[in-house]
């Protein structure tokens, strides 16, 4: 924790910068909806940040904006200090559904980004094997997606997001479709992968405990219009474990986050 704190304060430039971003959507009826209002956020290199909030708070929109898939109506986004105009290749994404290609085996699914980026598959073969090993899928390289459990599919999706070695990993409720136990297991596994690979992670979830357990900082968002309510530093030791959920500090964090979300609802 201490060492992380130091890199945090010493870093010259934030990895991701979101400056007074607004997003306005036009509905089919012609009226305008404010999806994001004045979002300001900086994410440091190697930091694990979770975005938590109820549905409609714009957390997924914000994530897609960082991915370069949605352009802000106003404000600016910077990656490594450079203004983001199109999707950056330095980003890996994991969605709620694994969306593996059913006609490709595990290994070829992991290598999909390599093919799309026009890189040589042979150069990344070893990396693909290593990643699959890292997530505990050694021996499953030739299996087809329909032979994998939901958790295994999502593990494969994580490997696919990491194969081109991006420095940023964006995750949009990646474990929401899994059962509770697989979800906890994968959460901890993700932390292990993160410790080993040192990525900057932005992780969207609607689970408060998941948000706290994984994060260095939790960004609490509230809906209508979507905005950041508060950013909370999580001062729990690493490596994290499931028992931490019973710690008093953890309960305090949960209480604060829950209060922030509920108070926004009652107004």
């Amino acid at each position, binding site marked *: 924790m201490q060492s992380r704190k130091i890199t945090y304060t010493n870093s010259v430039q934030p990895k991701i910068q979101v400056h007074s971003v607004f997003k306005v959507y036009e509905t089919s009826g012609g009226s305008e909806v404010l999806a994001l209002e004045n979002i300001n956020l900086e994410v440091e290199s190697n930091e694990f940040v979770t975005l938590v909030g109820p549905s409609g708070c714009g957390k997924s929109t914000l994530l897609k904006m960082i991915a370069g898939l949605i352009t802000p109506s106003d404000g600016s986004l910077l990656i490594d200090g450079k203004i983001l105009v199109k*999707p950056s290749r330095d*980003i890996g*994404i994991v969605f*709620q559904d694994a*969306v593996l290609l*059913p006609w490709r085996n595990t290994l070829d699914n992991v290598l999909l980004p390599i093919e799309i980026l026009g890189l040589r598959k042979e150069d990344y073969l070893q990396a693909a094997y290593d990643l699959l090993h890292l997530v505990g899928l050694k021996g499953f390289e030739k299996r087809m997606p329909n032979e994998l459990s939901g958790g295994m599919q999502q593990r494969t999706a994580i490997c696919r997001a990491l194969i081109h070695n991006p420095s940023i990993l964006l995750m949009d409720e990646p474990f929401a479709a899994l059962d509770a136990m697989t979800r906890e297991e994968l959460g901890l596994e993700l932390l292990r992968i993160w410790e080993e690979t040192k990525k900057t992670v932005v992780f969207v979830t609607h689970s408060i405990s998941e948000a706290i357990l994984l994060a260095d900082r939790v960004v609490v968002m509230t809906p209508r219009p979507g905005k950041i309510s508060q950013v909370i530093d999580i001062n729990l030791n690493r490596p994290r474990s499931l028992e931490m959920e019973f710690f008093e500090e953890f309960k305090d964090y949960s209480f604060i986050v829950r209060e922030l979300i509920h108070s926004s609802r009652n107004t």
Partner: protein
Amino acid sequence: MIIQKLNMNHRNLFLSKKITLDFGLPILTLITLLFGWQVLWWLTSPPPWFLPSPMSVIEVTLKWIDVLPMHAGITLYETLTGFILAIIFGIPIAVVIVYSTFLQRTVYPILLAFQSVPKVAVAPLLLMWVGHGELPKIIVVFLVCFFPIVVSSASGMQSVPSSLLDLVRSLSANPSMVFLKIRLPNALPYIFVGLKVAITLAVIGAVIGEFVGSNAGLGYLILISTQQFDTALAFSSIIILTTMSIILFYAIELLEKILVPWAPRQ
């Protein structure tokens, strides 16, 4: 290794049992029905022009064995040519529709509306326009096959999960790459659904075409044999037609199993 082998044996046993159940039982039922029909025919002895016996159908088939393959061949030729032409034109048109919002808004709705035109009703017109011979039949087959193929291909290419498209977009994939690696393979199971619908319609289309005006083919044979009260020959032709239709359908399904092993199956 031994366990694996045992497993395989067990699997083969299970498979052969499944095949026996899946094919053996229906065939047994069919034989029983035919036998019942023959017995009933012996008991009631209806006039042969009204209902021939299975025996007499076999007899007639053997009597006509010299010309039946020729007629069947012509119908098969019309069916396959129209069907293949529908694939050759249908799939590229589906691609164009998927990639062009303009065509999607202008041509596609009209195409869907045209699908409601009973293609059978157009057959006499075709006869008028392109005359006798195989061409009008091929056109009827083409028309009945074209729409299911276009619609299924287009919906297959459009039904790519949006998060998958987001993923490739985040990697700045070029459109041809997305088409070849994502949209086309994703559409394959849908295309095969369309092909299976189309092939059954294709046989019907060919026969209808022959009904309207021809001097060869199984449809023609059915028409003249009923006019001459040779009901057994009509039955024989219908059986050949049905067999042809079934074989074509399963040929497509076999092709699907080879090309699209990941397709969901019932």
